[in-house]
């Protein structure tokens, strides 16, 4: 995962946190989230700009979310042998709320 500032690009989408951090992640990884999928595949603004501002999620949290999306995508298709996904305890609650919002 990179924190590159590149906006748009067919295979990448840009996630913007409430405090303005931008995360570019692969479209595939974003599709792991039901909410993000609808955003980018629906008919709204987001699908045209390939960019979404998530007003409820701050930068630190969004980084962890992106990390999880990629982690999920990577291990989607191989059962067993999946390394533990580490979650700092202080972030657990917020992450839980975010995941509910994003339908992960």
């Amino acid at each position: 995962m990179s924190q590159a500032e590149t906006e748009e690009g067919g295979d990448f989408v840009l996630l913007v946190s409430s405090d303005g951090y931008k995360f570019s992640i692969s479209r595939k990884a974003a599709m792991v989230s039901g909410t993000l999928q609808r955003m980018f595949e629906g008919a709204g603004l987001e699908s045209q700009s390939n960019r979404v501002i998530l007003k409820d999620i701050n930068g630190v949290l969004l980084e962890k979310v992106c990390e999880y999306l990629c982690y999920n995508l990577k291990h989607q298709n191989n059962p067993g042998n999946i390394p533990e996904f580490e979650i700092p305890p202080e972030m657990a609650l917020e992450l839980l709320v975010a995941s509910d919002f994003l339908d992960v």
Partner: protein
Amino acid sequence: MRPPRNRDSADVNFDDSWNVLSTAMQEMYKKNASRLSYEELYRTAYTLVLKKHAEKLYNAFKSFVAQHLRDMVANELAPLASNTANSLSADGLGSTVAVPLATADQREAGIRFLKAVKVQWDDHCLCMRMISDILMYMDRVYCKELQLPLIYDAGLALFRDHVIRNKEFQVGEHIYAVILNQIRLQRDGDLVDTSAIKAAVLMLESLTEDKIDGETVYSRSFEPKFLRSSTEFYVAEAAKISRECLSGQYLVETEKRLKEEHERAMTYLSVSTEPKIISIVEETMITKNIIAVMHSEKSGINQMILNERMDDLQRLYRLVARVDPEKTDLRNSLMTRVTQQGTEINRDALEDLKKPERAKGVSAQNAATMTAFKWVEAVLGLKERYDRILNDTMDGDNKVQTSLTKAFSTFINQMSRCSEFLSLFIDDNLKKGLKGKTEEEAEAVLDRAITLFRYIDDKDVFETYYKSHLAKRLLGGRSISDDVERMMITKLKMEVGFSFTTKLEGMFKDMKVSRDMTEEYKTYSQEHDSDRRTELSVSVLTSTNWPVSLSSGEQSSSSTCVYPSEIEHVKRSFEKFYVDRHSGRVLTWKPNMGNADLRATFKKRKYGLNVSTYAMVILTLFNDVADGDALSFEEIRAATSISEPELVRNLQSLAVVPNTRVLLKEPMSKDIKPTDRFSVNVNFESHYLKIKIPTVAYINKTETEKERKETVDKVDELRRYQTDAAIVRIMKARKTLEHNILVAEVTSQLSSRFHPDASLIKKRIDAMLEREYIERSSDNRQVYNYLA
């Protein structure tokens, strides 16, 4: 995952949020969705649900969409429909009379209406998808929990209730009417826009009914209407076609309709409708009408058979097979037809027989042979024709075949002389018909005969005839080939088993043994009697194997004669020879079956004559008579002691038949009278050196009638023995048996040979009781006990 509840402290104002959402929804309907931020809307809805406003949101959503749809119908669809309403509303709203033909305008209006509905439907679906995306969180948390329909499904239900079943303007009814109208037009041969209909049908199919699993608006509302109007259409159609067209055409039309309906259902109606509409067509066009079509005077099944309309018959079979696996009607029609044709053949044959001698020189027997030949050929022709029909058009259907077999068997056995005819047919073929044919061809002819043989119930009658014909063939040396004879016997054996043919085979054996014996005797006689002038060839027949009239002693009075001394000498010599080898056997001579080769000297030249034994005896008498002298009938009879009818026959052939007149008769007339005198025709001439003088057949028709009666009596007698034997066999095995069961068992045992009637069996049972083979049980008069 459930979110923690205590996180967001700030309460939200439902109205404000709903405002945001409903505005967005309106934008979506206006196709402005691309200007909306999904994230914002989703977050708004998410927050509302989180704050327990889900129920309110759900209801608000529903009333918003309902209102929108109602407005849409009123503004967009109703005005369009009003064009078509005049012609359609009558049908759409309950009336089921065939849709009146719409004008071109109205038709197009109908299609336009369908298209408009389709546009609205597509829009609606799209919007519902977007809204359901926005309200996804509510779907997940609220709807699933309370088992309410998801947003999307709720949206479709709203479309159903507020558009299709809109109370003020029945969009649905209009759609149905338009579709039915279009289908009607297509059935009448117009081109219609199937894609518009297909779209409408798809829409109706995706609208499910609440609370009923698997039911859709299509299956609940449209399909019944469609089936009802189709039924009406086809009832009328069937009546129309059967009135206007020939049966063949009717079948073509029916198949065409079936195909059309199948295609219609597959292309733009539902797959699930296909079997229903097909069964309607089958019911109205086939089940209710096919009998009338089949029995049509000028074009029904009989005509099809007559004209070999194989296509039509095949079609008929296919259609009938669709509705009735038993094909009862078809089978009955065929049976009636076969029986009818068979009865005609029988009648023709009987009439042929009744006709007086047709041409001169055709004896009654030849006439009978010809009739038999004609009859057999006609029956086989009929059989082959129906076989062809069966195999070419009905896939050799088993049930139809059974019926045909039954029909054939019925009419063949109605013909009282079927066995005799068949045997005559075979006789004729074996005597001359098969001459010069290859083995395969001969086998084919025999196979045909066997085909017919299978149908004959009274196989024992056939056996009797066959035996007497075979005997004549063998003794007269008139069979064209032993191989073919044997082939026939083998075929018979395969059909009815060993016991049937033992005697026939015995006859062959006798012939073979006789040939060997003749050879042996030749050597023997050369040793013992070197100056003999006569050669002898004998056939020694086992009396039980050969037909009674040939071998039993009952006719001994009529078959003796005084042989000339040379012959008598040879006869004694052979008798001695035979008895030396087989002591204890009795030889009876049968001059009526024999023949002799003579050399006779006439004025012009010498001729070799082949004549019957009797004729030979008569002719040798003239050896001792001076040229020009004559012998009277009485004298001849006294000298030879040949019975009168035989003498008459032989004299006729010697003195009356024009080309072989070796004797002269005084006075010259056709009939032989006891007062006639005979002398040698010294001026006899012929083109050939060797002349066969056949014995004149019994010209008297009453004679053949008598023969027939004898045959029948003989058969009856045989049947009595066989029935007795069967009764004893069964009773011996079962010891005690009830009357009815005994009768049934006897019938089944005998059925391979003939069909015994109950009265015969009953009589035989009585006879067996009398002869104390069995007794009535003392407890039950209906039960018999076997007496050892």
